[in-house]
């Protein structure tokens, strides 16, 4: 199908009604990709239990979204869920895994270890601070570990991004992660500034007042 999706659009486009054919082709291809994301069984630490196992088990059934067939080989998987901490020694292996996967491949970084190094940012001589230094990431699911429902929200966001994002005319160009969907007038800089101000105000704890609340003896 590679021939059709790459070579054909140039010829079909000029034909009358050709773009209508292309858009409906887009719809079909994206619908198929979005609804059958086969995850790769790749969990390094605690997120693997919550995001891969608990989400796939009976209570929070991952199969409802068609993502239940967890393939062990990267060849047949098209969704790499980075669940857990990536350390320096694991980095080249993660890159090889990503390279081995078939072309329309997506990456969800779950847990704060995969997003930014999590609790091991400081004083850890091996933890990679964020997986996006190694491989391009599509959706970030924060949490330590994120609840299975949070992972589903990430999966549904990825499905929405696939359905709206990719087109046959420009293969491989995808919507940026959810940040790109900010309402007008608000930039990331404003958000970071507001966060810094908030952190500054709530950074102190009043110990005597805490003790009075819990009726303990004075310090």
């Amino acid at each position, binding site marked *: *199908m*590679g021939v059709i*999706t790459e070579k054909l659009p140039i010829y079909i486009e000029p034909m009358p009604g050709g773009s209508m054919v292309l858009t409906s082709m887009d719809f*079909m*291809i994206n*619908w*198929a*990709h979005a*609804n*059958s994301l086969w995850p790769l069984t790749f969990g390094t630490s605690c997120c693997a239990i919550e995001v891969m196992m608990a989400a796939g*088990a*009976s209570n929070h*059934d991952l*199969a*409802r*979204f*068609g993502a*239940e*067939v967890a*393939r*062990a*080989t990267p*060849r*047949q998987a*098209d969704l790499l869920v980075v669940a857990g901490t990536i350390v320096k020694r694991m980095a080249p292996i993660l890159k090889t895994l990503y390279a*081995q996967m*078939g*072309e*329309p491949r997506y990456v969800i970084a779950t847990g704060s270890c995969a997003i930014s190094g999590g609790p091991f940012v400081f004083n850890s001589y091996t933890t990679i601070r964020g997986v996006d230094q190694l491989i391009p990431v599509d959706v970030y699911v924060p949490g330590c570990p994120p609840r299975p429902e949070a992972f589903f929200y990430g999966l549904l966001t990825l499905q929405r991004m696939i359905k709206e994002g990719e087109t046959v005319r420009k293969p491989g160009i995808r919507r940026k992660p959810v940040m790109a969907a900010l309402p007008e007038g608000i930039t990331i800089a404003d958000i970071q500034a507001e966060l810094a101000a908030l952190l500054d105000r709530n950074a102190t704890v009043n110990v005597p007042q805490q003790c009075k609340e819990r009726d303990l003896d004075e310090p």
Partner: protein
Amino acid sequence: MNTTWKVTTVAQRAAEALPAHPWIASGYLLLGVAGIGAFVAGLGLAMIYAERKIAAHFQCRLGPMRVGWHGLLQTVADMLKLLMKEDIVPAQGDQLLHLFAPLLTFLGTMLAIMMVPMSPILQVADVNIGVLYVTAVSGFGVLGILLGGWSSNNKWSLLGAMRAGAQIISYEISATLALLVVVMFSGTLQLSHIVQSQADGWWIWRAPGVGLVSFIVYLIASTAEINRTPFDIPEGESELTAGFHTEYSGIRFAFFFLAEFINMFIVSAMAATLFLGGWMPFHIGGFGTLNHAMDLIPPGLWFAGKTGFLIFLIMWFRWTFPRLRVDQLMRLEWKILLPVGFANLLVGASFVIFNLYFFPWH
């Protein structure tokens, strides 16, 4: 006497129409080929969907729900995605063999499905060596698996392929022995005649004891032949990452995936045809009233019901049994199934000679 069924296959119709008007004959042939293609595709999608839903309900979960009503379109999405996937051929691997291995497996399946007598009119071809032809053609499957495993230049797939070679070849023996018993009773190899020979009753109960034992031996051996749990060691998920199809992606993995499911259909269709009377309704000897009552249900439905139940049984195996080890698997075949098969054959032969079975029809 029971109603006699007139069997006309597509090939016969083409042969009759050939001298007079060749266009209609080629139309029939085209119908046969296209019919098989559509049937295989539709059946594959339906069975994969059924497997995922049955597995889900076995395991107290829902299975695919979001894609179409109750996930009906889920397999369509899977197949379309597999078509779109990048097709990776390993560099150091043997490219040519790697490309054609899945086609060999699929070839074996397509050739075998022609012979399956689904109902008196719904049968593409009917040769007089039916049973022999089907068991011979199903040998292509293991050829494809061996080539695929070896040419992927991957230790896991090589291990999986060697296991598949040893397993399928050895289980074909006891499968053929079980089929031979019924061939002895019905006297012919032609599948449609075998079905008609069960007009007085299905071989599973008409040959007392022998029929049931060979049915069970055939069921075990055929589950091993199509690599289904508890014999799925060629693609043992937890040991060999993905067994022989580790290096396959995209459309050619879909061929292996589909071939496995259609093989499951063929195996349960053969079991239904030989032991449960194929499309023959449930008759008991001369018991006229019951036979006529049973004839009200069209023969095609009888076939679908029997095969459907057997497919459900094979799927049920998958969700209850663990995997056998390689040596346990070989021991089961050579030390248990083979002696049982031969003893069963001898006993069956003596029943046939002395007409010791119900409603002897020779």
